């Protein structure tokens, strides 16, 4: 048809020259929609021909620094790449250390780890939804995301003493115990969040503009998702039932009753829906944890015994806090290596730790979920419209510092 139309136009002397409009746009790193990286976009008209994610703008050499610090000093460092998801970053690393020094973690500490992880997951998902909202121009979702996140950050602050970089989990247990005040606050927060999620659905999920921007945008089929190595909510939105909490349970997850939301559409809307439902599941888990958490110690006996009795009396009995025993100062674990996986808010987080018997790790390797999304985002952006770049970016919940490490 088009050929014939062109012929007609040409014969009548009204031929139209279609000039391909090609060019490059240099989006970022100082751009409202780029995050901490540069995105080189090759455009043909409004269609993206190729995207080059120039990552590394916030690279901090965490892996190399890891070889020059002792094991305890690494805890605050490994959190830094994703400060909004620091509990998970912390948890994965500490689990690897525990595997090497071979220590058991008390039941109560396991529950507390899950508690902190789920609170952090909610906070992180709300952050991601807020960023997605502002990428699509929805400033209300942005402010709500950050406002509602504050509720959960506050709980983390009560529990751990810090808002974001918590350093809460230590080899053998956790640093602080759950107090009745925190339980009370969490119950209030759960009620508030349930109510607020309804409002979220009304203004964000069912908003026609949001649906138009996310549905059928950045579609990733099941095969492609596996091939490109997507993880976490993005993988589950493409119809793959894969969650480390179920496949290889850690902390208190074997004892908790929760479901893994899986969508088969694979588009941006499905990814957003998965995050929403994960928040709901996390609320369910928090309720269970509050109800079922066993009494007991929060640090392995092996380390607990080393705390001097006077300090134990003051801090543990007075404030329910652990004072780090001298062992941690610069312990030398036996030779060995460990691989751990945790389900961080953005997906599977892998740690590979090698110990050569000295006080510092021989090698620390961390494969963060955002790192795996670089390839996914690049592939998804090809062939989409320029305006969809931010929509794909936001719906993947890609977090550049986490990818750069």
């Amino acid at each position, binding site marked *: 048809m088009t050929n014939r139309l062109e012929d007609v136009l040409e014969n009548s002397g009204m031929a139209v020259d279609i000039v391909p409009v090609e*060019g490059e*746009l*240099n989006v970022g790193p100082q*751009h*409202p*929609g780029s995050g901490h990286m540069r995105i080189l976009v090759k455009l043909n008209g*409004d269609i993206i021909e190729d995207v080059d994610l120039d990552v590394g703008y916030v690279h901090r050499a965490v892996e190399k620094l890891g070889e020059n610090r002792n094991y305890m000093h690494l805890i605050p460092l490994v959190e830094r790449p994703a400060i909004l998801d620091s509990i998970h970053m912390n948890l994965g690393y500490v689990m690897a250390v525990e595997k090497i020094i071979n220590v058991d973690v008390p039941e109560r500490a396991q529950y507390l780890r899950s508690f902190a992880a789920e609170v952090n997951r909610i906070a992180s998902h709300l952050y991601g939804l807020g960023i997605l*909202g*502002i*990428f*699509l*121009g*929805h*400033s*209300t*979702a*942005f*402010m*709500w995301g950050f*406002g509602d996140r504050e509720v959960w950050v506050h709980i983390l602050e009560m529990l751990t003493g810090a808002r974001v970089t918590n350093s809460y989990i230590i080899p053998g247990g956790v640093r602080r115990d759950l107090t009745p005040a925190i339980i009370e606050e969490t119950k209030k927060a759960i009620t508030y969040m349930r109510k607020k999620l309804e409002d979220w659905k009304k*203004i964000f999920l069912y*908003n026609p*503009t*949001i649906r*138009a*921007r996310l549905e059928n945008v950045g579609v990733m089929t099941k095969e492609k998702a596996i091939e490109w190595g997507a993880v976490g909510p993005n993988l589950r939105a493409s119809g793959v039932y894969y969650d480390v909490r179920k496949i290889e349970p850690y902390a208190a997850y074997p004892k908790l009753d929760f479901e893994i939301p899986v969508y088969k559409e694979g588009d941006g809307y499905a990814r957003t829906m998965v995050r929403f439902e994960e928040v709901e599941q996390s609320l369910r888990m928090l309720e269970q944890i509050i109800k079922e958490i066993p009494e007991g110690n929060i640090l392995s006996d092996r380390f607990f015994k080393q705390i001097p009795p006077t300090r134990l009396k003051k801090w543990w009995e007075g404030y329910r806090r652990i004072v780090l025993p001298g062992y941690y100062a610069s312990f030398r674990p036996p030779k060995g290596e460990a691989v751990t996986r945790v389900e961080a808010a953005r997906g599977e987080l892998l740690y590979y730790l090698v110990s050569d018997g000295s006080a510092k790790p021989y090698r620390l390797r961390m494969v963060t979920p955002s790192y795996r999304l670089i390839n996914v985002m690049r592939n998804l952006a090809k062939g989409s*419209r*320029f*305006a*969809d*770049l*931010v929509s794909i970016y936001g719906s993947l919940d890609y977090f550049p510092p986490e990818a750069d490490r």
Partner: protein
Amino acid sequence: MDILGLLRFYILYPSFFVTVIFPGLVFTLLLLLVTIWFERKAAARVQMRIGPYYASKRLGGILQLVADAVKFVFSEIIIPNEVNPTLYALAPVLMVIASFLPIAVIPLSVIPPSGSVFSIYFKDFYDPDINAGVIAGLFVNYNLLLVLAIESVYPIFVVLLAWSTNNRFAVVGAVRETYLSVSYDVILLMSTLAMALEYHTLDIAKIVSYGIPGIVANPLAAFLFFVAMLMGSSRFPFDISEAETELVIGPYTEYSGFLFVLTMAGSYVGNFIYALVFADVFLWGWYPLSGFPGLVLTVLKAVIVLFFATFMRSVYARYRVDQALRGSWKYLLPLAFASLILGMVVGYVWIR
């Protein structure tokens, strides 16, 4: 006539009063500040924030906008190396002029033969169609058409502005604006044409004085006009040419200081002009009143429409440019035809 009376005569002379004082330059400048203040305050209310507050706690932070304006006026205007400085500085000025000019021809109220401060100008602004004077900068019989014709020049200056700044984001934004302007202008014109057919006139004053508000006579056209107004003045959900996370600020990316204020003002002023037309044609304008109170009433209605349009920011995200184009050609254009037919039918049956 004494000197005060002479002064009063010239100040209240509609051509001067309407274009310079109320709702002209002076009022529009104030309105701009109040609108942005309202936009921020209303969005803050929805978004669990407080919004501007500390600059003047008792006034709800409205002085923050004055402070912002002062800061913008005195900040350095950076002119990039590779641009033509004359065009670069002139483009935003021309754009604001183009968006502001139609205020001269919009009838904003009627002048009764006696009893109003404007009654002395009755003969000079006499409109034979409604047998009364009209408060407008310049009375033209075909003012409905003229307003839209002048306002539709505005996108051309946006393109000029983007072109003269020589920035890729600006050019992409200008191209988006061009695409959109083609589609919203059609809808804008067709919905007003429907009203013109319905009331058998192209004179806004006659439409208002007919006694039936346009939104009752043709709700379809009112809806279309409102949507096209949102598109035309880059309000959400059609904040497409300025899309912040995609194009920084679209055509205005390179501007700073006072020139940036002008570029921002352009879309707000354009929105205000459309809101004035909307208030006149669809919301009954000055209707039960006349003279100066009528003028205030019209402007008040327009301000409410403007506030409503800015409030959209806290409800909607932005559409993609192809979605907005498809929406306007595929759904709004047939609706515009429907509103034309509705206008013809109602004009034939009810409004004679």
